[in-house]
């Protein structure tokens, strides 16, 4: 009888541990079971990526449609080449869509915002955003602002 209680409680313990892992996986990491959705790769060249990091999200109209996979410097143009994978359900981005690096809030993370263009043809797998807008560097803005106000005082 005593052995039986021990067995039951051990079984309960193992089950609780596995369940805890499952809940962590599903609820906390936001893993949905159909996460095997397909993506396609698109790249974009930026003058300055600011502090964009791999795994940053790619957003259109406030909806996440993909994420950044790789950022590297192009040796020839000295520009940053940002590769991102886009959900293949969104396969109708016009060729002249604009990719810009924006910041969520004042202190928030950087992400890539896509605004829609007007072309009839769509960007394909391995394609590239021709039109890009670099990150706004807050320090540069502050610098310009300070410099401007100092000059005004001098006059």
């Amino acid at each position, binding site marked *: 009888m005593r052995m039986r209680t021990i*067995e039951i409680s051990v079984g309960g313990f*193992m089950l609780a*541990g*596995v369940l805890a892992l499952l809940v*962590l*996986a599903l609820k906390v*990491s936001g893993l949905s079971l159909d996460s095997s959705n397909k993506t396609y790769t698109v790249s974009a060249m930026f003058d300055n990526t600011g502090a964009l990091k791999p795994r940053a*999200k790619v957003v259109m109209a406030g909806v996440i449609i993909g994420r950044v996979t790789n950022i590297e410097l192009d040796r020839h143009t000295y520009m940053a080449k940002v590769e991102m994978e886009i959900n293949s359900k969104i396969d109708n981005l016009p060729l002249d869509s604009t990719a810009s690096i924006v910041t969520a809030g004042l*202190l928030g993370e950087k992400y890539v915002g896509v605004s829609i263009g007007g072309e009839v043809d769509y960007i394909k797998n391995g394609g590239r955003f021709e039109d890009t807008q670099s990150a706004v560097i807050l320090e540069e803005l502050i610098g310009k602002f300070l410099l401007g106000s100092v000059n005004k005082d001098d006059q």
Partner: protein
Amino acid sequence: MTGLSERLAQLGRFGLEHVQSIGRSGVFLFLAIFSRAGFSNRFSLLTHQLYSIGVLSLLIVIMSGLFIGMVLALQGYNILIRYGSEGAVGQMVALSLLREMGPVVTGLLFAGRAGSALTAEIGLMKTTEQLSSLEMIGVDPLKRIIAPRFWAGVIAMPLLAAIFSLVGILGAAMVGIDWLGIYEGSFWSSMQSSVRLVNDIGNGMIKSLVFGFVVTWISVYQGYDAVPTSEGVSRATTRTVVYSSMAILGLDFILTAVMFGDL
């Protein structure tokens, strides 16, 4: 001159003793893991050990997890509210629990609660010559006593760490959402958008598995290697807790550097 050579000999003896002890514990571990247990009741032996190591540790793990989660939420809220980003409390709590606090604190509690008990039990068995009696009747104490305890520790530790993290996150949700009034949606969504299954949960589980392995190894070895007197057992128990805690914290740094260092 003799004084110098005596010193040198002391140093040598010290080094040899320690290397010997490491070697002994390695051989000991190898024998405990890879010996085929010939007992028909080996699962009931394992079940018994899982009960005393895992189930009986549940209470302290759940209580600590709950309070640590609640405290993390409170502290994070106090700082993040200044920047108006109190929704990030969920992310902060989940990441710190899954990556660090879960495995490390569970490991420390495990060493204190289960590891010391293992050492004391095995050390006392040695002191009262139960281990030698087992050998006398032709039962290998490594298989009968050590192996089930070792495996029970290795199995129980990741489960305990998972329960700890989950309870901590639930505690944080309780304090953050119900008490401090963080918006529920941003609490969970900031958590879900930042926690990765393999990078965070998986690596946390690997950490807890490693800690479980090391802590149980240290515990059973210290018990088995204890000087068979009451003082020796008490020393061995102390050593278990000290060595386990140091091993957990040191290994945690190394594992973190390997897992998250290049981010």
